[in-house]
């Protein structure tokens, strides 16, 4: 039963090797999706290219359904799988700051690494900026420490908050995503920018 490494106590070296292999797949699929282009990424916010929306939600839903089926078949122990811890304030404030960074810089950390790999100089500057930002946070940590640790709600799952089965929530999310894809594709038609799409 999975998750394989923590359950079977597999050594740290194997864990790191698998991290590298998973990273390979991650980088490959990001690049194939076209996430190595900042103008393509930013396209989502202007409606001329909603690739980000498509890839992001399709990936999240695929993994979500996969986990539900693996769990049903008894192949994975979901109590061991990491569920992100929820601190209300810091998640929202942090998310808002990241949002500003996204529209200003045109990347997020994962895609910037991927874009830097194929020679995008702006992505390399973005990575440099990220390091500066993290350093800044580390140096001024005492100012944010209270906010950072406020209102800890544990590894909260949305399905338990809404008091419904994981599968039902997944169905709702899938339906919502399909509506979003439909709206997005219509937007692509309306705001389409041939000139930009040719360049990226």
């Amino acid at each position: 039963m999975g998750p394989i490494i923590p359950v079977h106590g597999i050594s740290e070296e194997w864990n790191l090797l698998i991290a590298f292999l998973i990273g390979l797949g991650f980088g490959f699929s990001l690049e194939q999706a076209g996430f190595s282009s900042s103008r393509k990424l930013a396209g989502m916010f202007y409606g001329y290219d909603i690739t980000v929306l498509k890839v992001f939600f399709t990936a999240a839903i695929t993994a979500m359904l996969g986990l539900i089926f693996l769990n049903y078949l008894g192949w994975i122990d979901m109590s061991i799988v990491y569920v992100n811890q929820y601190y209300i304030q810091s998640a929202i404030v942090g998310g808002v700051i990241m949002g500003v960074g996204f529209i200003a810089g045109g990347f997020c950390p994962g895609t910037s690494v991927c874009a830097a790999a194929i020679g995008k100089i702006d992505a390399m500057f973005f990575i440099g900026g990220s390091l500066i930002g993290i350093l800044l946070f580390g140096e001024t940590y005492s100012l944010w420490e209270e906010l950072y640790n406020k209102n800890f709600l544990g590894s909260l799952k949305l399905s338990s908050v809404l008091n419904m089965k994981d599968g039902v929530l997944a169905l709702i999310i899938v339906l919502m995503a399909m509506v979003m894809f439909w709206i997005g594709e219509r937007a692509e038609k309306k705001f389409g920018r041939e000139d930009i799409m040719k360049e990226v």
Partner: protein
Amino acid sequence: MKNRKNLVILGSLVIVIAVALIGVSLKQKNQTSIVVPAEKVRQMISNGNLYYDPEDLQKSLTKNGNEIDLIDLRSPDQFLDNAITGAINIPFQRILEDEYRSYFTDNKLKVIYTDQESKAAEVWTLLTQMGYQNVYVLKGGLDYWKAKIEHQDIFGNASLDNEKARFDFKKELEGE
């Protein structure tokens, strides 16, 4: 027309996935999950729900043998060689096989035994964790039964309470 063909292909794809999922989940049928948590079973033992007293067993066996299912968990050889009259034989190694498991599903009182208590108690723990509530272990095991009930060997050293210290450990070690 082309669209309809695509739909058929897609529909059959979905059906194949669904069938595969159901198939895989059926294949795992021979996994019996534990329904009673370990701590609850431990409490049952502390509350004395583990044992069945041999004298009570003897009484109910002579009175009306149908009240209790007496189950010998040892091997068939041992069972043929020497067993309590009225017992049936289910080697504990095979207890989860379908034909034997069905013995435990009715509500009749079940008393299980091995030569000593401890193996029967281990199997009792498993059965109780699986949710069978009406199973008990013959206190003292077959050894006590043979010595005290069948042979009336009053002076023998067979003890009913297995967990009672049979020696004064401290005195034995430190000398007189």
